[in-house]
């Protein structure tokens, strides 16, 4: 009998101890603070974030910003002295292609374009495509998923079948129609149209989240208190689903870069004279042996961007998902158990 009592006491202590460790990290913090703290504890994610910020600044400041119309241009020139159309005729290591020199650190292509300018332009396009597809896909996915999951019934049925319909249309077809066929509408239009077709995955996820969340007690409570549908969606359910949305949007960002690169590689994306990283790889895949730098740089740039976005996504997932708690180390546990031992 006495033994049994001991055992249950011990169990109770263990549970208390475990909760204490789990709570110690989060005591007295708001939800946002907890998330921020967890995110910044994830080293690869922080490294990815820092890299992305620095890389974006680096790329956009290199070529400068060129906006506005032809009549009223708005130009800020960058610190790099070549642009993608400029040709320098004295090419070292001709006739194949220019090897890296002090003036052209990434080398030159066979005509004499500065390869650094080409790669940075490609990276700019990748970043732009990523932002456009990410924001369009994120917006439409959230709206479609939220409406579908919240209202359910026939609205849900119609919207989900519409989603199934969009899923069947492949990105390559859109690329072919927009980028390759209808004149050359430019990268931005291509990104826009790809964005219109890339919300499907997110919509399904958000719908699932809304389906679960709308059955929860706090939604009933809000409804009883007289909240409108709009208020319930925006103030009560959406903040709870924001983790899923953010994580899945980061994955969408990473995959959209690969989509654009793949389309351009096949010749359906960005068209010459503009450049894209996929297009550069396609052009120089055969010069691997004679001019490997022409092949390595665009590939390395794509990988660097996608990898850091993926790591940021992983960090966000860890930060937002309370179910995947940080593992409590045995050492912490022993320490805590020692501290909470009765009589000490």
């Amino acid at each position: 009998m006495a033994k049994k009592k001991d055992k249950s006491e011990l169990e109770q202590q263990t549970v208390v101890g475990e909760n204490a460790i789990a709570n110690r990290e989060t005591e007295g913090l708001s939800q946002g603070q907890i998330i921020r703290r967890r995110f910044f504890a994830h080293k690869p994610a922080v490294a990815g974030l820092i890299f992305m910020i620095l890389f974006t600044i680096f790329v956009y400041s290199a070529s400068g910003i060129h906006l506005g119309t032809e009549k009223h241009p708005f130009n800020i020139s960058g610190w790099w002295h070549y642009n993608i159309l400029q040709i320098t005729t004295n090419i070292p290591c001709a006739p194949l292609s220019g090897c890296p020199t002090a003036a052209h650190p990434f080398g030159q292509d066979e005509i004499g374009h500065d390869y650094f300018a080409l790669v940075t332009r490609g990276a700019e396009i990748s970043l732009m495509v990523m932002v456009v597809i990410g924001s369009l896909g994120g917006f439409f996915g959230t709206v479609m998923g939220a409406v579908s999951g919240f209202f359910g019934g026939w609205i849900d049925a119609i919207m989900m079948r519409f989603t199934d319909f969009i899923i069947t249309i492949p990105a390559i077809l859109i690329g072919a129609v927009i980028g390759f066929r209808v004149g050359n509408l430019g990268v931005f239009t291509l990104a826009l149209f790809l964005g219109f077709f890339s919300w499907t995955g997110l919509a399904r996820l958000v719908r699932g989240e809304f389906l679960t969340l709308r059955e929860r007690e706090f939604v009933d409570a809000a409804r009883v208190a007289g909240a409108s549908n709009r208020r319930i969606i925006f103030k009560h359910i959406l903040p709870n689903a924001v983790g899923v949305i953010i994580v899945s949007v980061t994955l969408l960002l990473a995959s959209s870069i690969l989509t654009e690169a793949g389309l351009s590689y096949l010749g359906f994306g960005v068209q010459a004279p503009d450049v894209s990283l996929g297009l550069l790889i396609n052009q120089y895949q055969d010069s691997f042996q004679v001019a490997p730098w022409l092949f390595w740089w665009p590939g390395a740039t794509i990988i660097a961007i996608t990898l850091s976005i993926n790591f940021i996504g992983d960090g966000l997932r860890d930060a937002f998902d309370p179910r995947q708690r940080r593992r409590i180390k045995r050492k912490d546990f022993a320490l805590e158990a020692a501290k909470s031992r009765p009589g000490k």
Partner: protein
Amino acid sequence: MNWALKPDEIRNEIKLLAYIGRRISIAVMILFGSTFITYNLEAYAGDPIAGLAESTVQNKWYLIHKLTRELQLDVPPPARYFLWLKGVLAGLTGNLDLGLTRKSHSVAQEIAAAIPVTIRLLTTSTILAIVLGITIGVISAIRQYSRLDYSLTFVAFLMFSLPIFWVAVLLKQFMAIGFNNYLEKPNLDLLWVFLTAAAFAFVLTGFVSGTRKRVLITFGSSFVIFSSILFIINQTKWVLNPTLGVYVIGLLGVGIAFGMTYVFVGLQNRKALYAALTSVGVAVLMYFPFQTIVNQNANFGLLVVVALLMLSVSYFIGYFFTKIDKGPVIQASMLTAFLTSFLVVVDKILQSWKPYMNTPAVAGRPIQTLGPSNSLLVTTDFWMQNLDIITHIALPTMALTLIGFSGYVRYTRGSLLEVLNMDYIRTARAKGLGEREVILRHAFRNAMIPLTTLVAYDIAGILGGAIITESVFGWHGMGSLFNEAIQNQDLKLLMGTFAITAFLAVMATLAADLIYTALDPRIRIGKK
């Protein structure tokens, strides 16, 4: 046994049938919509006679007229779609008409020729990606936040971020050209031996966890083992005649038996170990008929028969060696027997490596980068034909597997971790079950349920082909057909390939939903 269904169950069955019927009719509507939109998008996007209208050939007007009649360009696209649809629907009565391509080939025949190529290209890599990805994901989840987990996560993310065309070029460069060059003069410098061994040892060390001392010991011993293996391979020029022989197969089989027993039931279960070792013995015995009888008249049917034979024999071995809890023991011994007899087949194929290398069509450069098979190779030998297929498929399979498996790693890891945090796992542990039973029997099965969607999509995606991979490696499958159709503004070819892909995608969604419902009792059809 009571076979009669209760009224309640009958009602559920009817509900399920009605649900499937409704979903199929919706699927038909979706297919109609997406083919209609695709047809019109493509038809309005480009004018097939635009190129001709600008040209200066003499009989330009005749050609334009001919093209217009052939492609029915005088009918507006929305109406022309129905002409195409009529041909497709005629397939219901057995005379399918998908029209002609721009080169006046039958679209249906082109697709029929492309499908086997695509299936051959994608089946292996899809299966490999699923098996590898799930295995690594499980390992990663069990050792969450260990060094192993971090290294696997990093690898998975890296693979996830790679553009496949870039990987393909690298593989062509290093695995094909580099390896073929090495085969011409198979003599590595000692420095390279040590460097490669160090790289292997480093990767292996990523897999162990524990104190620094243990890590260093692992690194040191694996470095010694790897470098001696490489040294022996180098000295004996094994790569020129890479056969295993019955002793090596036996040794590897014993290793597999120990490994499988460890994974499924644990080495303390002697009965299981003996069962697995007996299976190895039976499988190794297969080595001898393979050298003589099977050698002459081998074909795929025979291999399937042998595989089934091995599986059933090892099933009974597992069954008779144990008295209680037969399931995992049977699984372990079946898997052991299968893998060991697979080694026998691999060895048999490798035996034709040397003659294959010496044929003039190959001329000492076996790893190929283009096409599905060597058209110059003249052989009737079943094993050499297969070796030829393998040397061609190796690179694209590697590329597709590398890219494909990382998604499975991430999903499996996340899903298993979520399940491991559930209360019933705590209950299982509290009952005193070992970690192996908890993970294999309680957690793993439930963690696999969300993956059915992914698997269904990937399997349906096999027929869609891999557009980029097929174009890089010069395979003429469904993906390259689609690519060609877009490049040449070949509307009927495009619609033919697209209809198949879209059909399979819609069916995969339906199948995934149904499988999901069957596997997860918490979801019930018709229940709100």
